[in-house]
Structures are given as C-alpha cells and as structure tokens.
C-alpha cells in the first residue's frame, strides 16, 4: 500500500470517467429532452382498460427515464384514475429496469448483445413481476 499506487488508482479512475464522459453527457441530454417532450404530451397517453394496457404500461416505463420518484408519482396518478395495479406495477418496474434512452450508452460500454438481451428480458420480467406481485398482494 503506497501513495504512488493510490495516486495511480485515482488517475486510472479519472481516466475511466473521462473516457465515458461523452456517453454520460449524451444520455443526460437525451433524458432531459425526452422528459420535456413527455410532460408536453403526457395527457395524450391513455389506457383503455384492455388486456394490452399492461404492454402499454411496460412500453411507457421502458421509454421514459429519470428519477424513480417520478415513476411513483405518475403511478399514483394512474391508480387514482382507476388503472389496474398490474399495469401500474409493470410501469414502475420497467421504468427502473429497462432503459431505451440509456441503451446506446449501455451498448457501447457493456456490449450490444448484453444490452439487447438484458433490456428485452427486463421488459418481459416487468410484466412477470407485475403479475406475481398482484397475485401476492391479493393472496396475503
């Protein structure tokens, strides 16, 4: 354990952050642009009480990005409007586990195949988690 090694580790970390800086900045700019767009068109997004509402919920959650708190607030609004717990749960889960906006960054840094497989399975699992959670809530 030496000061020289610590300095080397620190410089290595800074280099790692610097190398990924354009990707991180690009993702931040994309998320911000998308959030402005979302809140301009938020009221156009409607659920019709059909079976495929759960798909719409998961797709919405996958596309949208940002702090999970926003997803809780939106989910609360949806619940208040009578949208089912299954749709709302799938929406919350996909919001935090699937990242369409972050996909380019994930793909560049962790591999295209990794990013595709992880996001597709996370999308499917958002519905599965929704189903199991709602069954669990009703049973217990």
């Amino acid at each position: 354990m030496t000061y020289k090694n610590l300095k080397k580790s620190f410089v290595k970390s800074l280099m790692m952050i610097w190398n990924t800086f354009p990707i991180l900045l690009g993702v931040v700019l994309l998320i911000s642009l998308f959030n402005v767009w979302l809140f301009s068109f938020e009221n156009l997004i409607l659920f019709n009480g059909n079976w495929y509402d759960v798909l719409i919920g998961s797709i919405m959650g996958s596309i949208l990005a940002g702090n999970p708190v926003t997803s809780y607030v939106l989910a609360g609004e949806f619940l208040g409007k009578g949208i089912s717990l299954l749709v709302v749960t799938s929406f919350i889960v996909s919001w935090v586990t699937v990242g369409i906006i972050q996909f380019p960054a994930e793909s560049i840094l962790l591999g295209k195949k990794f990013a595709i497989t992880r996001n597709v399975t996370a999308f499917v699992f958002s519905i599965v988690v929704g189903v199991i959670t709602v069954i669990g809530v009703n049973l217990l």
Partner: protein
Amino acid sequence: MTTEKSYVGWYFLLTVVLIYLIVLVFNNSIIKLALIGSLNILKSLIFVLVILIIFTTLINYFVNPKTLVKYMGEDSGIKGIIISIVAGIISTGPIYMWYPLLNDLQTKGVKTSLLVIFLYNRAIKIPLIPIILVYFSWKYVLILFFVMIIMSVIQGFIVEKILFIGK
C-alpha cells in the same frame, strides 16, 4: 489512450447534439427547457460522480482482478449473488453512471449474470420507500421488492445462458 471505442462515445454525443439542433429549428422553447433540465441533472450528478471516483479508486487500489474473480467470478456461487444484490440496492445515482465501472469489472472477469443482477437490483431504492408508501401499502412494497430480488437472479441466469449460447 485513444481507442475506437472511445470515439464511439464522441459520435454518440455528436448525434445527440444534432438531434438538439434539428429540434431547435422547429421549437426552440423545448431546447431551452431541455438544456435547463440537463444542467439540473448534471448538478445532481456531481455527488454521485465523487462517490463513483472514490469507489473505483478504492477498487483499483485494494482489489486485484484475482480477488474480484474469487468473489464475483465464474465460481463465486451464492456469495457473488448476494454481493451483487446488496451492491445494487445500496448503489446511488442514475444507472448510466455505473456503466463505466461495470465495464471495468467486466474486463476484470466478473461474471455476466452478476452484472445483470446488480443492474436489476438498482431498482430497489431503500431511501425512496417513504415516497412509494405515499401511494402504495407496506404489503405491496415488500412483496414487490422481494419478487424483484428473486427475478433479478433468474434474469441474470437467463441473460448469461443466452450470451453463452451465442459464443
């Protein structure tokens, strides 16, 4: 060191800037709001960035690839799974901030399934529980988090299997 991979990042940023310029032609108020929003996000990221730098410095300093592979490599077993779940839950900041570190861990031999488990468990945020409780019951939150932890392990296993088939 300039690699082809590092250029990809700059091309990506350039593409986003081009999208901004195209939107600017049609609606400059959206761009103004988006830039203010980006600045706010970047401000909130400073703290996460500092944590990330400290975290990666400590990993680079104390943990050598051999140790990392022992705890999170191919034969890490249940120990690796638990480490990934806990690390995912306690990690802070947006998911994309962690990609550089995960990339580093990936090259050091950490198991793919453990990276997937880490990313999935980032969805469980203990400090945000009071906010989610405003809209949902304790029972719902506990069941949801429990199901998500279990599913993260299953997803890790499935993703690794799919990626392995391709090789």
